[in-house]
């Protein structure tokens, strides 16, 4: 057992969230363009559910971490812990401008529950920024598992 195991676990989680974000973003953009959806209603609902669960978890860990950044987050896989630290640092350094990096992540779950199209730009931008961080994390897991040539 080595660090690769943690990378594989981390990739599995990240893939499910990134995939869900892509599903929701494509759906919202097609709706805005009055175009036919590519995925079924059940698939969209499942994607929203996946993101909501993850945001709630992220929020919980983030609160614990930001209360005392010198303290370890206990009972958490080290790769998730690294993501929480990265998210918190991006927030602190204002690396992204979208809502999720200025409110608490859990606030985004409320937007995900809204059908009103006036919220869709906020939602798309927040999801896209969150995806950027997740992809960054995912790339490093992938490189750890399958190094470059």
């Amino acid at each position, binding site marked *: *057992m*080595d*660090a*690769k*195991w*943690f990378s*594989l*676990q981390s*990739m*599995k989680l990240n*893939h499910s969230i*990134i*995939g869900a*974000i*892509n599903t929701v*973003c*494509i759906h919202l*953009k*097609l709706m805005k*363009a009055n*175009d036919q959806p*590519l*995925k079924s209603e059940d698939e969209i609902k499942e994607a929203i559910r996946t993101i909501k669960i993850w945001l709630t978890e992220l929020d919980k860990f983030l609160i614990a971490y930001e209360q005392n950044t*010198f*303290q*370890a*987050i*206990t*009972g*958490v*896989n*080290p790769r998730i*812990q690294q993501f929480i630290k990265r998210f918190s640092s991006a927030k602190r350094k204002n690396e992204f401008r979208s809502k999720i990096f200025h409110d608490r992540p859990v606030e985004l779950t409320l937007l995900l529950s809204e059908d009103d199209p006036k919220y869709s730009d906020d939602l798309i931008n927040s999801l*896209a920024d969150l*995806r950027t961080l997740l*992809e960054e994390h*995912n790339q490093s897991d*992938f490189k750890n*598992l*399958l190094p470059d040539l």
Partner: protein
Amino acid sequence: MYTILLRHNTSMLQQVALLMDTIHSKQVPEELALYKGWLIRTLESMQSVIQNNLKAINKKNSNLYKDILSDTELVFHNLGLVNSLYVPPIHRSISSDIISLKLLHWLHNSNSKTINIPFAIADGSFGVYLNQRTLYYLPIVEQKGLLFLALFFHEFGHVLFAIHRPEMEQLIAEIQLAIEEFLRPGFAHNDEKNEDEWRNNEIIVTTWYRWALELYCDAVGLVIGGPAYLLAFSNYFQMGGRNEFFNNKEELAGSTHPVTSIRLKFLLSRARQLGYNEISNQVEEEWNLLKTSYNVNEEYFGYYIEEYFEVIEGVISDMITQSFPIEYNNSSCSPAVLINQAWQKFYENPAGYPDAEKNLVHNFLNSSFQLSSILS
């Protein structure tokens, strides 16, 4: 962007088809049937994602390209993993895997939660990769004999951990919080030294997530494999040199495994609780001789002190209770008993062991009716 996305998705669809053909054309033993089935379903689902990407690309809506690019990257990563990690065990499948496969089949069937998890064997140093399936890594020499198959029992601990993850992580948090308490500075002084101390403690506590997991897996190995696990563990690490007793502070930070001497302390204690006193004394004596010979000072820089022992051992016991691995029973007929017999033969007469092992393997494979009854 349209052209790039179209080209990559089209190419990946062809690669998936090629892998499908490769897997379909390969005959595998029945123990690998579940794994082969999982692999085919995985590739089918990949095909469906790519086809969905192609539909999205053909909408020619440039607002969607970032999202489709992201979906394409996901498939690229998955395909890379399937191609490099998950197909090779089917591609390499050889008849001499049979003992290892039967052992893993027995292990997975010993627990209602692992019975449907596909597994396979791959070449490499001991390890396990798991997700919805499990890949057990095993070096070539160890694949050919019985003795070190006992180390699979440790790897199976990782599978049990993954199944019981939420409860297990809560228990690991108990260990981490207890260690944090031990390390907490007596008084807080608001200066750089204090900050360094907090940072150092954070690294130690974080490292213990992995260490606790490995100590739990060692305990699982011992519970399932009995004395054979202790002997396999001890012999596997014994010639590793001074580093089995001592690592410097930088190496300890974020390390994936506790120093072997720490692991051995926990193993020996549990082995004695399980009644394996004689073999524990023998193993301990050998390691003490090595320690004297290396003249090494066991210093762990706060990563381990004797005061941690009781709380860690208690929580590891709770983790065992939570995951209930099958217990070693020398009066039954099982692969665990077979490996214990192998170690007994090896210790009785190391030079004559290869012939004794051949007999043990022959008898084991010819007693498939007994194995079937165990599995059922």
